[in-house]
C-alpha cells in the first residue's frame, strides 16, 4: 500500500482545514490536506451570507464590541456553549476579518451617506459615517443585537475559500483531492494518521502523520432533507467514533434552517430576512410577528423554524406534491437590491425553481442545516481521547455554538478556530517525533483492505445500500427532526439498531472496480448509521428542550439537570453509543438567563453562579 509521510495531515480542505493548514505551513511544517473534491468545491464555498465579527464600522453596528457579540452567541447557544471558547472566538474574529482582507477577500465596504434599508418589509433610513468610509461593512443576521455580519456580496464563503486556497497555494500546502479518509490509525493513546481510499483509482493509501486534524465539515447528509452539499456525510466523524476512544459532543444538537427551497432543499440565505424579507402563509398573511412580536422573522433560527412548523401544523401551509411549505417574500426589496445584493438567491430561484423573486413568492420550509455537534475538542482544538488528533470547523465540537449557532458565526468559526488550532498544532509539532509500532499501521491497513475485499468479492451480504440509507433517512426525518418526543425516539433507537445490522450486510450490485460510487457508500454506511444513532440516542436521553433540541414531552430548558454536554463514544461491538456528560462550560461569564426570544420555561440551576443576570432585551 502506498504510504505518505507528513507533519500535519489535515483531513478536509474547506475553510477550517485550509486556515489551519496555512497557519502550520507558515510555521515551517509540511502539510497535506485531503479532500473528497477539489479544495474550492468544499462546502464552505456555498455559504452565502457572511461572517460575524464585531468590527462596529457599519452605522447599524455602532457600539458593537466583542462583549456584545459574546452575549449574543451565548444566548443563541441557549447557554449550551463553552463560554471560554465563545469569548476566545469573539475577541479574535475582528482580527481575522482584517487578516482575510490583507490576503485578498473583497469585503463589501462602508459607503458614507444616507441609505435605505428594510425591516419587516418597511423602509427605514440610516446614515453611514464619513470617517468609516472604506472600512469593512456588515449586514444584519438573525439573533444579533447589532449589524455584525461581514460579507462579500452574497458569495462570502466562495470569496473567502478562494482567497484561502490561493494563500495555501502560495505557501506550498499540498492538497490531495479525491481522497477519502476511511479510518484513523492509532495505538489507543496516539493518533498516527489515516487509511484513505483514492477516489480516482479506488486504491487504498496510508498517510502517516505527527498530527492529524479532522476538518471534514458537517454531517447533514445523514438526513434526507438537508441544505448541505451531498458530500457532507460525516466521514471524519465516522473515522473518529470508530476508534472507540474519541467522543463526539452534542450530536443531538442539529440546526434546522427556516428557508430551504421546495423541493430541492437548497438554502436561500438568512440575508433575505436580514434585509427585510418576510414569511407568509397560505393566506399570504405575515404570521411571524404574532409569535415573536419583537424579532419576528429575525429571531434565532431554532425559534423561526419551530414557529414555521407550528404554523404549518395549524393547517396554514401551502400544499404541494412535496409536502407543505410557506412563502418567503422579498419582492418589496426591489429589483436592484435583489439582482445585486441577493444575486445568488435570484439565480437559485430562476435556475432551480423557474421563478423570479422580484415578482414571485419563494416556496420554503425548514430543513436540516448545521451540525453543532462533532469531534469534541478542548479550547486548543485537541480531541479528547487521542494525543495528536485535533478538530476544527463544523466537524468539531469546540463548542461555541452549544445548542444553536447564530447565522454568520459558523463561517467565522472556521477561520478563527482554524487559525487558533493551527497555532496550537504548530506548537505540538515543534520537537515532536513519532514512535510508531509498525504492527499498528499494518493491522489497520489489513482491516480496511478486508472490508473492501469482502464488498468487492461479494462474500455474503444481501442488502441494497441505497435502500438501507433510505431506511436511515426515514428514521431521522420521523423522530429526530424539529419536534422530538420520547416515544418516537425510543422506537427510532430500536429501528436504527436493525438498520445498523443491515448496513453491515450490504451486497454490491455493481462490480466495485476503480472509483466505484456504490462501494464508497457501502464503506461508510455503517458509520453513517452510527452517527444517526448518536443523534437519536442522545436526543432520547436529553430530557429537556434547549436551543434546537425540542422535546414535546419536556418543554422546559432544564438548567438544574442538563447544563451539560453529551459525549458519545462507541465501544466495539455495541449497538448504541455510551453517553457521558460534562459541564457545558468550565466557568460562567454570563450566568444562565432568558434569551429574550423563543419563550419557554426555564428550570433554574440549584446554585446559580454569582454575577449579573443575563440582561433582558
Amino acid at each position, binding site marked *: 500500500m502506498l504510504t505518505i509521510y507528513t507533519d500535519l495531515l489535515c483531513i478536509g480542505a474547506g475553510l477550517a482545514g485550509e486556515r489551519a493548514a496555512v497557519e502550520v505551513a507558515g510555521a515551517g511544517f509540511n502539510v497535506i490536506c485531503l479532500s473528497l473534491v477539489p479544495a474550492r468545491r468544499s462546502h464552505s464555498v456555498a455559504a452565502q451570507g457572511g461572517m460575524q465579527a464585531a468590527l462596529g464600522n457599519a452605522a447599524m453596528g455602532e457600539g458593537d464590541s466583542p462583549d456584545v457579540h459574546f452575549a449574543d452567541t451565548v444566548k443563541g447557544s441557549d447557554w449550551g456553549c463553552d463560554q471560554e471558547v465563545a469569548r476566545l472566538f469573539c475577541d479574535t474574529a475582528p482580527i481575522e476579518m482584517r487578516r482575510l482582507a*490583507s490576503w*485578498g477577500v*473583497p469585503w463589501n465596504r462602508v459607503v458614507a451617506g444616507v441609505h435605505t434599508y428594510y425591516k419587516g418589509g418597511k423602509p427605514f433610513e440610516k446614515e453611514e459615517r464619513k470617517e468609516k468610509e472604506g*472600512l469593512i461593512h456588515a449586514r444584519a443576521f438573525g439573533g444579533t443585537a447589532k449589524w455584525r455580519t461581514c460579507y462579500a456580496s452574497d458569495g462570502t464563503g466562495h470569496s473567502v475559500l478562494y482567497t484561502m486556497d490561493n494563500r495555501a*497555494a502560495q505557501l506550498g500546502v499540498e492538497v490531495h483531492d479525491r481522497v477519502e479518509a476511511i479510518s484513523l490509525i492509532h495505538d489507543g493513546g496516539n493518533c498516527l494518521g489515516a487509511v484513505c481510499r483514492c477516489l480516482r483509482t479506488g486504491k487504498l493509501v496510508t498517510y502517516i502523520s505527527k498530527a492529524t486534524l479532522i476538518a471534514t465539515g458537517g454531517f447533514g447528509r445523514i438526513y434526507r432533507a438537508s441544505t448541505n452539499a451531498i458530500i457532507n456525510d460525516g466521514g471524519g466523524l465516522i473515522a473518529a467514533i470508530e476508534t472507540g476512544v474519541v467522543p463526539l459532543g452534542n450530536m443531538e444538537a442539529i440546526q434546522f434552517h427556516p428557508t430551504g427551497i421546495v423541493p430541492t432543499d437548497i438554502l436561500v440565505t438568512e440575508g433575505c430576512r436580514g434585509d427585510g424579507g418576510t414569511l407568509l402563509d397560505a393566506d399570504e398573511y405575515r404570521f411571524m410577528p404574532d409569535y415573536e412580536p419583537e424579532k419576528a422573522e429575525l429571531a434565532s433560527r431554532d425559534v423561526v423554524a419551530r414557529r414555521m412548523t407550528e404554523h404549518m401544523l395549524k393547517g396554514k401551509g401551502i400544499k404541494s406534491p412535496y409536502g407543505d411549505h410557506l412563502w418567503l417574500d422579498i419582492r418589496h426589496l426591489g429589483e436592484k437590491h435583489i439582482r445585486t445584493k441577493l444575486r445568488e438567491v435570484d439565480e437559485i430561484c430562476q*435556475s432551480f425553481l423557474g421563478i423570479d423573486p422580484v415578482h414571485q413568492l419563494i416556496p420554503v420550509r425548514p430543513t436540516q442545516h448545521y451540525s453543532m455537534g462533532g469531534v469534541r475538542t478542548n479550547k486548543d482544538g485537541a480531541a479528547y481521547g487521542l494525543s495528536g488528533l485535533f478538530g476544527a470547523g463544523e466537524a468539531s465540537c469546540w463548542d461555541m455554538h452549544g445548542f444553536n449557532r447564530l447565522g454568520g458565526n459558523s463561517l467565522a468559526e472556521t477561520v478563527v478556530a482554524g487559525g487558533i488550532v493551527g497555532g496550537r498544532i504548530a506548537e505540538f509539532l515543534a520537537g515532536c517525533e513519532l514512535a510508531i509500532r509498525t504492527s499498528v499501521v499494518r493491522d489497520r491497513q489489513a482491516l480496511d483492505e478486508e472490508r473492501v475485499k469482502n464488498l468487492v468479492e461479494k462474500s455474503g451480504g444481501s442488502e441494497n445500500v441505497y435502500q438501507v440509507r433510505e431506511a436511515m433517512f426515514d428514521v431521522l426525518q420521523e423522530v429526530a427532526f424539529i419536534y422530538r418526543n420520547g416515544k418516537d425516539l425510543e422506537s427510532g433507537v430500536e429501528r436504527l439498531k436493525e438498520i445498523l445490522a443491515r448496513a453491515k450486510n450490504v451486497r454490491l450490485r455493481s462490480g466495485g472496480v476503480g472509483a466505484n460510487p456504490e462501494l464508497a457508500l457501502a464503506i461508510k454506511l455503517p458509520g453513517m448509521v452510527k452517527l444517526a444513532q448518536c443523534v437519536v440516542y442522545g436526543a432520547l436521553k436529553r430530557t429537556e428542550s434547549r436551543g434546537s433540541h425540542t422535546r414535546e414531552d419536556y418543554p422546559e430548558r432544564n438548567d438544574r439537570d442538563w447544563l451539560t454536554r453529551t459525549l458519545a463514544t462507541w465501544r466495539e461491538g455495541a449497538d448504541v453509543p455510551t453517553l457521558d456528560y460534562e459541564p457545558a462550560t468550565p466557568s460562567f461569564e454570563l450566568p444562565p438567563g432568558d434569551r429574550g426570544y423563543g419563550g419557554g420555561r426555564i428550570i433554574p440551576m440549584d446554585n446559580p453562579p454569582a454575577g449579573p443576570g443575563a440582561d433582558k432585551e
Partner: protein
Amino acid sequence: MPRNLTFNIFRYNPQDPASVPHMDTFVLGETDSMTLFIALGRIREEQDPSLQFDFCCRAGVCGSCAMVINGRPGLACNTKVKDLPAEITLLPLPFFKLVGDLSVDTGTWFREMYQRVESWVHTERVFDPAQEEERMDNDTANRIYELDRCIECGCCIAACGTARMRKDFLGAAGLNRLARFLIDPRDQRTEREYFELIGNDQGIFGCMGLLACEDVCPKRLPLQDQLGFLRRKMALSVLPWKK
C-alpha cells in the same frame, strides 16, 4: 402526460481493463421540477450503481458537475429536463483527464493554473493585527468580486478552440484570474511582471476571440471583456516609454 426521457450516457472506466468507451442508454419517467441532478441520481440508484459523475453543492455554486449536455458544456445540477428534448446525450467535459464516465479531473489543471499565474496577492506589506484594515472603495471591492465569481467548473476551457490545439493555454479561467489581481489595489505586481506571466501564446495572445468561453460560462462572467482588457494592457505595458 409525463414524458419518457432517454439518456445516452458516455461510459468508460479507465481502472477496469475490461472496460471500453461506449454509450449506454437509460430510460426514465420525467417528474415535476426534475433536474439532471435528480435524474442522474435516480439512474445510479435504480439502474446502474457503477455510474460515475460528480455532484457536490447541487446548487450551481461549486462547479463540480460540468458536463457536455446535448453538445454544450454546462452544469448538470441546474439544468432542468423540461428545457431539454426527450432524448438527452451526456458526455464528460473534453480536455480534462477522465476519471470515469461523466467525471473528469479539473482539480489538477486548476492547481497548476494557480501556480502559473501566481494566483495570490503579491505584497510587501506585513499584516499587523493591531491596525485597522486598509481602506478600499466599495466599487473596487465589487469589481474584484465580479471577477472572483469564477467557479472553476472548466466549461470555458472545454469549449475553447485554442485549448483544443494547445494543452498549455491558460484559457479564459486562467486569464480572468490574472485580471482579478490586476485590478486589485492590494496586489503590488507591476504591469511588466504581469506581462511576463501571460504575454505570450500560452497566455493572452493565444486567444482567437471565438467567444465560446463567455457563451458557455454558467456564471455569465464577462470573459471576453477581460480578455480584451488584458490584451490592451499587455500591449501597452511593453511599449518602451512605459515603465
